[in-house]
């Protein structure tokens, strides 16, 4: 090892996690503590918060003021949007997608969850598993977040009682057994206000032998989350330098969505079906031996074949079937328009845009009870439901369960260009 005291930074990896919570369940306090104890809150931010808290008549420093930056949010004391927060320890860099927890912000929770590896579900120890717990867990499962931390907060208010904690663990397990995308659940009893089991181990709960929240976040293994089996490379851009030195260079630029690509691999271009072999994987720092998700790469082929943005490079022995009919779960995002019968939209999937018609709404979900609603099939803002879609051109898609990138899409309103829905292919 080198003596260089910065070398540790170069060996860190990245964990993206999401938190959902309402005004009084201690979410802001929890995030505030993670940020403050890892020194991601600075003196000037702390001073500014103290001044505004005082001006608002808050008794303690209101850590929510750190995340609620927009004027409307500060005035109304609510979190409207997804706020992204950053902190790092010598082991990992963390990106928090901090979302409001009320049902009217489902679309923000879905947005925050779409890029997360892990979700923190906060439970107030006094209230136990409630509707909101169910909703947050359902969204984590729907967006295929594989790691969930159930943080049983405010243990100080139930006298650090092990029985209360165990009851919540049992209640959560019994309903979460239906959520099959969640492969790893960790339960942590904590008090964000006092600091127990957030960064420092609790002295008030000697019966708990597990990790603190921060230790768990630092060490949870996420290396197996990406699909490294089915190779998928959506083409973003074709690099043609037209220079003397690189006269015949044709590089296909994109970001690996799944699997591993190496020089010498037999590949197929979809939807055309042309086949070739990878000649090289190029970069400014020199040729690369292999690339995998989520790396950006530039691939050259042995043969001169036609391929451009919207096409996908896959392995010859593992090809998805192009399809114009998809079944999907969608979350409706538009506040001013509902999903009308046979609505026409623009569908954006990987680097491709096609026209699409929603041909049927099969059912809507009551995300508090996980019951299907079949007698009201209109999707309004924040509604989640199952639909059938027909597209104007074939999509090179996988199920969302096998690949979050090639299994997801958004619907765009043709008139306003607004993103009106997010979809996960079944």
């Amino acid at each position: 090892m080198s003596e260089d005291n910065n070398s540790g930074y170069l060996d860190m990896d990245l964990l993206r996690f999401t938190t959902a919570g309402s005004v009084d369940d201690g979410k802001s306090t929890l995030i505030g503590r993670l940020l403050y104890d890892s020194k991601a809150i600075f003196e000037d931010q702390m001073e500014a918060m103290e001044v505004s808290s005082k001006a608002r008549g808050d008794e303690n420093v209101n850590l929510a003021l750190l995340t609620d930056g927009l004027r409307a949010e500060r005035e109304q004391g609510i979190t409207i949007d997804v706020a992204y927060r950053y902190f790092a320890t010598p082991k990992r860099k963390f990106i928090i997608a901090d979302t409001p927890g009320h049902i009217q912000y489902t679309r923000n929770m879905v947005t925050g969850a779409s890029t997360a590896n892990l979700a923190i579900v906060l439970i107030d120890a006094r209230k136990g598993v409630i509707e909101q717990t169910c909703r947050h867990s359902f969204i984590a499962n729907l967006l295929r977040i594989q790691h969930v931390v159930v943080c049983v907060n405010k243990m100080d208010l139930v006298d650090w009682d092990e029985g209360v904690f165990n009851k919540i663990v049992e209640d959560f397990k019994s309903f979460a057994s239906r959520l099959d995308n969640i492969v790893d659940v960790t339960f942590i009893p904590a008090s964000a206000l006092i600091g127990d089991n957030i960064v420092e181990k609790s002295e008030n709960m000697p019966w708990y032998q597990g990790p603190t929240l921060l230790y768990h976040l630092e060490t949870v293994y996420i290396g197996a989350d990406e699909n490294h089996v089915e190779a998928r490379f959506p083409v973003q851009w074709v690099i043609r330098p037209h220079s003397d030195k690189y006269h015949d260079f044709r590089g296909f630029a994109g970001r690996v969505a799944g699997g591993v690509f190496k020089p010498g691999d037999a590949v197929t271009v979809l939807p055309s079906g042309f086949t070739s072999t990878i000649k090289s994987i190029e970069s400014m720092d020199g040729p690369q031996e292999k690339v995998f998700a989520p790396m950006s790469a530039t691939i050259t082929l042995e043969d001169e074949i036609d391929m451009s943005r919207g096409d996908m490079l896959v392995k010859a022995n593992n090809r998805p079937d192009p399809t114009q009919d998809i079944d999907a779960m969608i979350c409706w995002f538009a506040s001013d328009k509902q999903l009308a019968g046979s609505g026409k939209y623009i569908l954006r999937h990987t680097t491709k845009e096609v026209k699409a018609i929603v041909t049927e709404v099969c059912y809507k979900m009551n995300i508090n009870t996980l019951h299907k609603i079949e007698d009201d099939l209109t999707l309004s803002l924040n509604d989640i439901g199952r639909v059938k879609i027909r597209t104007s051109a074939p999509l090179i898609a996988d199920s969302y369960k096998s690949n979050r990138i090639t299994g997801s899409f958004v619907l765009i309103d043709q008139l306003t260009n607004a993103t009106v829905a997010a979809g996960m292919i079944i």
Partner: protein
Amino acid sequence: MHNDYTITHLKQLESEAIYILRETAAQFEKPVLLFSGGKDSIVMAHLARKAFWPAKLPFQLLHVDTGHNFPETMEFRDKYVEELGAELVVGSVQKAIDEGKVVEEKGARASRNGLQTVALLEALEEGQYDAALGGGRRDEEKARAKERFFSHRDAFGQWDPKNQRPELWNIFNGRKQHGEHFRVFPLSNWTEMDIWQYIKAEEIELPHLYFSHERDCFVRDGVIMGVTDFIELLPDEKVEKMVVRFRTIGDATCTGACLSSANNLDDIIDEVAAARQTERGTRADDKRSETAMEDRKKQGYF
């Protein structure tokens, strides 16, 4: 703990930024990269080189010049652009003042920072650019924490924080009506620390202002300012020689320095790790009110 299929946080951030830069080139007709000669824009230009290598950048660079620059920054800018083989367009605040499009603030505390917005919108319109790549990061300021990678601006260049497009997975919707444009922020998920670590890992050259040096300075409102031709001293302000460096490089009239002996990247990284003040804590323009940044952004500021 790293197996074969794990990449470091810097490689993840690099991959993400390159993906955004390529999406920008593909989705827009005439994007432009805002280049000030500051470290964030230098990192962005470096990433753009990587994204399109071995081809040249598929867009021009644009510098919105307040006319109040540290001379070192300008020398660096011109040299860097030449090496990159890119085309630089300069939008001038001085020109906007001369043409009567904006009125300059008066007095010792006058700043041209606000006027930059007008010059920027002018330059975007004149160049018919439909997307402007900026080096803004979400960790810089609370109003930026909710900024999108693809940030929609209406035909007046304004930002509506309540009407932003949701961004999920890595799908970015850059569709727009005629006259509208986008601001694109490939470094959204980077922190100041990530920027410095990346500069070190990639051996990226920076202007000397970022490293410790001796300079004539004075203190105003608790902020150390460099003496330049553009700042009038107040009666009680004294010029002293100080050993300083700059954490950000903006308009010389509102960019503060910090006392520092860090003259190499390792020392700077240690200093950033130990810092108890945000980077923008030295920016006088953010101190004007609690939501100063949001208010400027709504008007079209970066």
